[in-house]
């Protein structure tokens, strides 16, 4: 907030200086033109800072992008784990198939597990694509942070300045958050305690 106030103060001093120049410019056309140009720049600077403040650019870099990339990392982790479970099950089926009598049935089961193994390669491709997106997000994050630093805007300054309506306690939207990140999710046991459930 301090840096934003300093920037606003600087813009105000610039405007005062311009007014001073214009007052003493008389018929000096060059001075008047310079004053006009600088006045325009000062107005642009203030407008840009207000716009950055209103869109919450600092929050985008400090919260939204890191949250998005955490979610994508969680996707990769969960799909890898699920694929592992599928492959474990396939191996059990293969082992069981090996003990069956009847070549046709054994072959059919082995073929089926081969198809599953092939399909599971989706996880590797998905993981690579998601990693590419995460890399792109982190590059965007770095640029947003650089822009905020250029304007002397801190995440806390902008978060404090953004207009947000007070949360309506009756609004169900606050309850719709989707799956929690693995290290933040409640276990079924924790949920059962809240419910007072005893199985």
């Amino acid at each position, binding site marked *: 907030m301090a840096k934003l106030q300093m920037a606003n103060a600087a813009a105000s001093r610039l405007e005062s200086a311009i007014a001073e120049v214009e007052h003493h410019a008389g018929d000096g056309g060059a001075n008047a033109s310079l004053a006009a140009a600088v006045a325009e720049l000062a107005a642009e600077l203030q407008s840009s800072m207000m716009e950055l403040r209103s869109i919450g650019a600092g929050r985008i870099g400090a919260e939204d992008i890191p949250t998005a990339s955490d979610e994508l990392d969680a996707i990769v982790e969960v799909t890898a784990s699920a694929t592992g479970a599928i492959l474990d099950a396939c191996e059990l089926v293969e082992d069981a198939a090996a003990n069956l009598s009847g070549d046709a049935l054994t072959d059919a089961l082995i073929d089926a597990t081969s198809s599953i193994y092939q399909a599971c390669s989706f996880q590797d491709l998905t993981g690579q694509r998601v990693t590419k997106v995460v890399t792109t997000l982190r590059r965007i994050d770095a640029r947003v942070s650089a822009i905020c630093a250029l304007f002397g805007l801190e995440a806390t300054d902008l978060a404090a300045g953004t207009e947000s309506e007070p949360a309506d306690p009756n609004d*169900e939207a606050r309850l719709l958050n989707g799956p929690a990140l693995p290290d933040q999710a*409640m276990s079924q046991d924790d*949920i059962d305690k809240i419910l007072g459930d005893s199985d």
Partner: protein
Amino acid sequence: MAVKKNMPILIVDDYKTMLRIVRNLLKQIGFENVDEATDGSAALEKLRDKDYELIISDWNMEPMTGLQLLKEVRSDERMKATPFIMITAESKPENVVEAKKAGVNNYIVKPFNAETLRAKLANVLAA
């Protein structure tokens, strides 16, 4: 758990794979009379046409969420006593509290396994 094979059950989820998984798990347990809906409002239409003895629903669906469906069910004289299990990825304490306030009978967090579903079903149907 005493299993009534033909007990009519309604499962509600906007994700078709999840409907398939829950249906298959119910079949493994012995329940075969299972209908599906892909969101709360579609479920409500089915509930108005048929008497179900159990509802298993996701939460985060559009246009009507599982919580809204639960509230509708609990405010309807004919359906209000129908056992309702929420199966959802929403796992914050305030979610569980809100669902409990709305009258949910049990709450299963995704991902879940067959044993958890079996245990919660037994708990709800024994009550």
